[in-house]
């Protein structure tokens, strides 16, 4: 187990040094290790994505909805020219951004408390508390929000008890904003916490020694060091919101359609896979840009 024990087992020699060199440099080993995962990734995942992209340039038989391999760009033309789709795309991206910002704001002080203030015991408890909701069915939790936000729901019942006027949040875009922020919050807290926890105490002490005030330390040291974690979390909150269709379906109102709803409507209902594929290119492109930006901010190291 210990390094010392290893040394006693085998004397250092030229052969093992070569082996060690091989271990460090060899393409063979890299290929061997990476091979199965990469094959899976390329053969199944990338192949599927490419197939999807190709499908976007085909069309369907409008009656039987079978795919016809006639090359055209009509699907993309519809996307660009039809105002409805533009509106839906904008709505989706805007709400995904709003949810991401909300979660970052909610998560940062919480993660800070977890990482730098709470005792070890409280830290573990809070971590468990953040993880636990991930095990309680996503669908059941979204459904619980319907019960909270609808006209006779828990929220208005509580407001009535407090003699406050009722809110009408149910089946609106506000409801979607609240529910999305709720559902994805743990995905923001965990990486933010991990990033904050890794900041060496000595940095903060040094800052304090140099006379920095708390606000200054937070702004100049903690925030930049936590940023990769926050950005890593934002990849989840942004992408999960961008692709969701269940929450809009359950808690949204009239005019709450997301890209995901239109994609789902075309795949699962209308069976117009080419058009769904064309529309799916939008979130793929948005996420690709987002990921490139995130990588520059060091989020991949913090994921």
């Amino acid at each position, binding site marked *: 187990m210990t390094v010392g024990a290893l040394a006693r087992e085998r004397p250092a020699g030229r052969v093992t040094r070569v082996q060690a060199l091989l271990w460090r440099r060899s393409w063979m080993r890299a290929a061997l290790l990476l091979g199965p995962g990469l094959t899976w990734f390329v053969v199944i995942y990338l192949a599927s994505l490419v197939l999807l992209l190709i499908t976007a340039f085909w069309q369907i038989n409008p*009656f039987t909805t079978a795919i*016809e391999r006639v090359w055209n760009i009509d699907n993309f033309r519809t996307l660009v020219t039809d105002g409805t789709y533009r509106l839906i795309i904008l709505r989706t991206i805007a709400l995904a951004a709003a949810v991401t910002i909300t979660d970052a704001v909610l998560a940062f002080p919480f993660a800070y408390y977890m990482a730098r203030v709470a005792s070890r015991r409280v830290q573990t408890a809070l971590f468990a508390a953040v993880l636990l909701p991930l095990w309680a069915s996503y669908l059941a939790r979204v459904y619980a929000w319907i019960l909270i936000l609808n*006209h*006779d729901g828990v929220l208005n019942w509580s407001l009535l008890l407090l003699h406050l006027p009722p809110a009408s949040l*149910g*089946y609106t875009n506000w409801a979607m904003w609240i529910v999305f922020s709720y559902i994805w919050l743990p995905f923001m807290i965990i990486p933010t916490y991990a990033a904050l926890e890794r900041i060496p105490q000595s940095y903060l002490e040094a800052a304090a020694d140099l006379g920095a005030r708390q606000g200054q330390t937070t702004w100049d040291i903690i925030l930049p060091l936590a940023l990769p974690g926050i950005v890593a979390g934002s990849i989840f909150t942004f992408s999960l919101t961008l692709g969701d269709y269940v929450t809009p379906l359950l808690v949204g109102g009239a005019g709450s*359609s997301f890209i995901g709803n239109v994609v789902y409507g075309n795949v699962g*209902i*209308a069976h117009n896979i080419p058009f769904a594929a064309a529309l799916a290119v939008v979130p793929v492109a948005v996420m690709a840009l987002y990921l490139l930006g995130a990588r520059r901010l060091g989020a991949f190291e913090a994921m």
Partner: protein
Amino acid sequence: MGDRLKRMAGARQTVMGLSLVLLLAACGGTSSNPGPAASQPPTAGMKPPTSIGTGEGQLNLIAWEGYAEKDWVQPFQQQTGCQVNAKYAGSSDEMVTLMANGGGGQYDMVSASGDADLRLIYGGDVKPVNVNLVPDYTNFQAQFKSPSFNTINGIHYGVSLQWGPNVLLYNKTQFPSAPSSWSTIYDSKYKGQVTIPNNPIQIADAALYLMKTKSNLGITDPYELTQSQFDAAVNLLKQQRPLIKKYWDLASQEISLFTNHDVVIGAAWPYQTNTLQAASVPVADTIPAEGATGWADTWMLGTKAPHPNCAYQWYKWISTPHVQAQQAIFFGETPVNSKACDEMEKLQAGSCAQYHANAPASYFNTIKFWKTPLADCGNGKSECMPYSKWQTAWTSITG
């Protein structure tokens, strides 16, 4: 995939033949002579079995909400050993997609409505059924033995099940007496308190309302709309959009909307009314003066059904008077088996008349049953809006 492509090629040829079939259907013909021009659906040549073999132990169904209830599924499972796996679909479109998903072969049967039947038949997703293996078939009301929506050239692609109207559901506190017109769901008085299904076929409901209230549009069939008639219906729905609290996708959503007073009026199935009334929510439903759209459902058999023997067992079971009566009362619809009326009375006095199980054929004719909108207007002209246009327009209304 190759299989699907072959079918596609076949389907393209049949679209022309199909318009002829639909023409006959529009004339009220229940079965048609196989004319030389009417090409056969892709599976027409498949020979149905002449006897039912031993069950496979499983049965995979695609059903409307409320069509695979414990009350009649459990005894079926006990008697036949066929374990029922039900998947619920909220629209005919979804059913067609599920049946075709992955090239078919997942599901045995689908409880398709009239607007899905022909798409399934001509898409090659369902195959001929031997109705002689279903003893209760002989007790079916005449118009459901070989209806044009599931029987083509004398070949049955399924066995009729139940039928009924789409109703106007309302809160009794807000409406002490039943609203007499569909105009209430277009009335700005109920801004933010209306719900209708999230389904392109809903355009037909608007068209039906316009057919009776704006005769100058010249609408004769709510599923066969010219560009101007279609635009009028879509405009009506766009004006209605600010009044809508939510376009419901799931039956339970409408139930929740009425329970919690988010809405006071909406278009519904009788299933919602029954569920709400069972929980003492003060609601009722009605068929307004303009009439109603409706459905006539058929259990169809998947071309690649993995459990055909259990499927035939299901055909036998679901057609018996008792089960027909159970489902009719549970969902609030009309059974096709003429012997179900007595069973309904036994289960719930007055239910036979309430759900029209003994009504004359003229009642059947007042309902505008769902069918797939085609470019062919049924009068030889192809200036009508095909269903793909309905879907696009629906997205622009609700999006």
